[in-house]
């Protein structure tokens, strides 16, 4: 039932707590299977900040550094990917400004891939390959993958429209990922953002991402154990 007063539009956002994240890649693999992404394609990657390779340390021998940062679409307030899209295939949904792609409109020009400062858009240049098995995997209601268009994390639109969390939120073993309405002051994400020294990626680009990160070892408050699954 719709509320009678003019409710604020929702603004979906994530907070990812790098103090908690251990780079286990569960959210990345979960996203990949759930969306039935083709071989070689990832909408969500957990990137090692450290050495040159995944899971290696940078810094020095005496003082090594290493942490991880999960990276999916930042669902920007000011999505440059949408601006550059010549077809309107990339768009911000009316009701909540969610950045989505209409795969039936996209011409595969890749302008958006080059525009997104976070490198989270993926051009499905080849016919999607699934060499390991013949079965169509993934969650019900997920759009099929096809060749020639650009894809990205959808914030699990079909799940959030059912009132569920995005899949990557629900699978995180460390409960490091939080999701909710940034326009709702009481949501977990809003509270976390208020209570912690959060940062966004490439703020100078003016994209206004809706994914916030609590930098490693900077967590100030206790907030944990969101044990959502149904």
């Amino acid at each position: 039932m719709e509320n009678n007063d003019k409710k604020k539009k929702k603004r979906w956002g994530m907070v990812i707590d790098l103090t908690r994240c251990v780079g286990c890649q569960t959210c990345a693999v979960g996203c990949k299977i759930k969306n039935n992404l083709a071989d070689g394609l990832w909408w969500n990657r957990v990137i090692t900040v450290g050495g040159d390779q995944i899971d290696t340390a940078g810094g020095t021998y005496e003082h090594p550094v290493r942490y991880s940062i999960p990276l999916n679409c930042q669902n920007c307030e000011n999505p440059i990917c949408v601006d550059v899209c010549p077809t309107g295939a990339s768009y911000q949904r009316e009701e909540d400004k969610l950045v989505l792609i209409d795969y039936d409109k996209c011409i595969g020009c890749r302008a958006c891939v080059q525009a997104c400062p976070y490198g989270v858009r993926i051009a499905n240049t080849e016919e999607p390959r699934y060499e390991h098995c013949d079965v169509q995997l993934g969650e019900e209601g997920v759009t099929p993958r096809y060749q020639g268009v650009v894809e990205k994390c959808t914030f699990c639109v079909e799940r959030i429209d059912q009132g569920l969390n995005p899949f990557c939120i629900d699978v995180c073993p460390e409960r490091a990922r939080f999701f909710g309405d940034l326009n709702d002051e009481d949501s977990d994400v809003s509270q976390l953002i208020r209570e912690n020294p959060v940062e966004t990626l490439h703020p100078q680009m003016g994209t206004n991402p809706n994914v916030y990160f609590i930098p490693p070892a900077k967590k100030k408050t206790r907030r944990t154990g969101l044990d959502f699954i149904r």
Partner: protein
Amino acid sequence: MSTEIKKFSACVPNCWMNCRLYAHVRDGKLVQTSAAPFPDPSYNRICLRGLSHPQRVNSKERILHPMKRVGKRGENKFEQISWDEAIDILSTNLNRVREKYGSKAVAFIPWSGSYAAINGGMPGAIKRFANIFEGTVVVDGVDFGMPTGMSQVVANMAGGMASLFLGPEPKDLSYAKTLIFWGTNITDSQVHNWHFVLDAMENGAKLICIDPRYSETAAKSHEWIRIRPGSDSVLALSMIQVIIEENLIDSDYCIRHTVAPFLVRQDNGLFLRQSDIDGSDQAGYVVVDSESGEIEPVESVARPELLGTFDVKLHNGNTLQVKTALQMLKDEADKYKPDEAERITTVPAEKIREIARIYATNTPSTIYPGFGIDRWDNADQVGRGIATLGVITGQIGKKGASPLGTMGQSAIQYTISDAVMGPWTSPSGTQAELLNFVLLQQAILTGKVDMWEPKDPGNPLAGPTAKTPVSKDWPIKGLILTTGNVVSNHAEQKVTIEEMFSEEKLDFICCIDMFMTDTARQADLFLPCTSWFENDDIVGGLHPYVMRMEKAIEPMGESKGDWEIFKLLAQKMGYGKYFMGEAKDQIEGILDVLGNLFGDRKEEILKEFREKGIARLSDPHSVPFADGVFYTRTGRAEFYSEGVATVFPKTMPALQLPVNEGHNPLPHFEPPAEAWFDNPLIKKYPLALSTLHTKWRVHTTFYDVAVLREIDPEPVVYLNRRESEKRGLKDGDYVRVFNDRGHCVVRLVVDDAINDGGAAIPKGWQRHQFKEGGYQELTKNHINTVHYGMSFFDALVEVEKWKG
């Protein structure tokens, strides 16, 4: 319209997490997995591997038909056959070997590949069949070193998980104020326990990680102690030294719950007893009263001396020197004062003092012991040291305080116990013999094994018949392998393949698996088993819950669950009456016995299980050792014991090697068998190799899942920058890792997380995934006659550029 159905299942490899999962099924196919709820949502869990099941189960690599070897053994040439023919071959071979060498010559080898009670390997249909057949079941051998040492201190049970099962449940981590991760990388290997750690941390706990390598766990901890591999018992002793020296022990706890005040006779190492003093038949322990200075029975003294050397008059008039047990410990620990320990461990003396103080004072404190310290010949000594730290500071038996890890309160300790599964695994009343994994190589190669022989099988405390293990005939001629990948996971792979699994040594080998693993490739007969989603079963996790596994999809291809396979074999061999019904029909019987262990709570537990498919077994409010009573001879924590607990199958308590025969019961230090800086071999092979448990696989399970291999495409070795440059190697080079036992060729990853003098290879790859060889060729099957654990990390290697 939705055509999808969701079934409750569980993920049951040996990763220690045992997640409850939903299996999402469309058109009879497993299309997705997701986390299914636990009654206590803090246990809700799934991981990247658990999410990859749809690819593993539907994999094109999966073998779906029985196969018979056609080429030479190990050539990997197979031909599809029918189940009839397969069972025929198997029964013929079993009969043949039994006739020729006796039934014991057939070794049934389940390992750790599935925790499911009926189709899995612990205990599983294979044990039921083996008991009926009266063959040999191969057991133990991994994860035995460090726990055996701990067992001696807190509970005289032999090895393995025994002492760990006496720790608290995982959630208890969140109550600790100090947490020491000792040789474990739980952010990879027990990923679901980390959020409890984070909870503790957000409440102000201090995290300390002891690891030669800057692991993810180290990166997340406040303090990282880079230690020389294999030297952990020195660190433990040095911390003990600091704690005693600075009087940070919990004296009350020591007096009441440990052997600290007991007097140790310097002539034979036994505890001084009342009878020694007065010639009576009173075997009670005595202590020195600190007020009167008199020797009195322990029960009657409130303030006994904890430290000191005393001369006592014995009833026969002789004077004898005694020391308190704590003094014995102190004397041993004094050999490793922080400055000396720094020389051996490379940990700065001040750091040692600092963490000792934090551990003893910033309480409650927990030590989370891991298996990086277990895979060493001297692992038992580390175990003793860590347990000792816990008991002398009183950091045990309280919320948030335990040195024993987090497997306590787990459901699996019931679902693998003889008390619950005994009746089910031996329906005929007969028993198979148990052979330790470490001795399997000896048995196959020589037909004999060197084993301790208890003097009195009914009383293991009486010790063994001889000062050394005695040689026993134990020919092994046929193998049935399930739920494990022996060729891949057993040390010394070249010997395994070229000698143990040779046609001269073994008459036949049958492997039951889903994939053509290293082991399956050596088999004469391959039987395709189902995945965990294709059977009904139950499983107890390494968490407090027993879970139902619902059959979500039909067995794929011609594959069958282990229950069905052994049932076919049993029918063929005339044991059909012991294998009646389906796997599903076994559950109620098992539950009934299980329930009996819980007295009043039985009905409640069973009701919950029947309704929800999941039930908590252990009492959430109980804390192990809360009463301060330990399962030892003295009922106290025995950092000094009259016997050294060793591993001998099925003895309860553990078989004890008497101190008066020269076995050292104290935590002490002996150098590792191979990987040690003053071993001359280090000139030739300067690097100590760890074969890590990685998030990409569970051992070898998941070794070829596409989604995981995209992020971890090939075997690699990690070396730090200095060691790489020394050898003229660059990141991305293919390198040969080798020693006298064998070699492998892998891609080099330069990583400054690795210590100087160290190298690491994440484990679980199959031989065909290497350019050449395999990492398991490099390890050694050290036989340690106390803990009988495989010392995988106690191995030296060298790395050079591959000229291939």
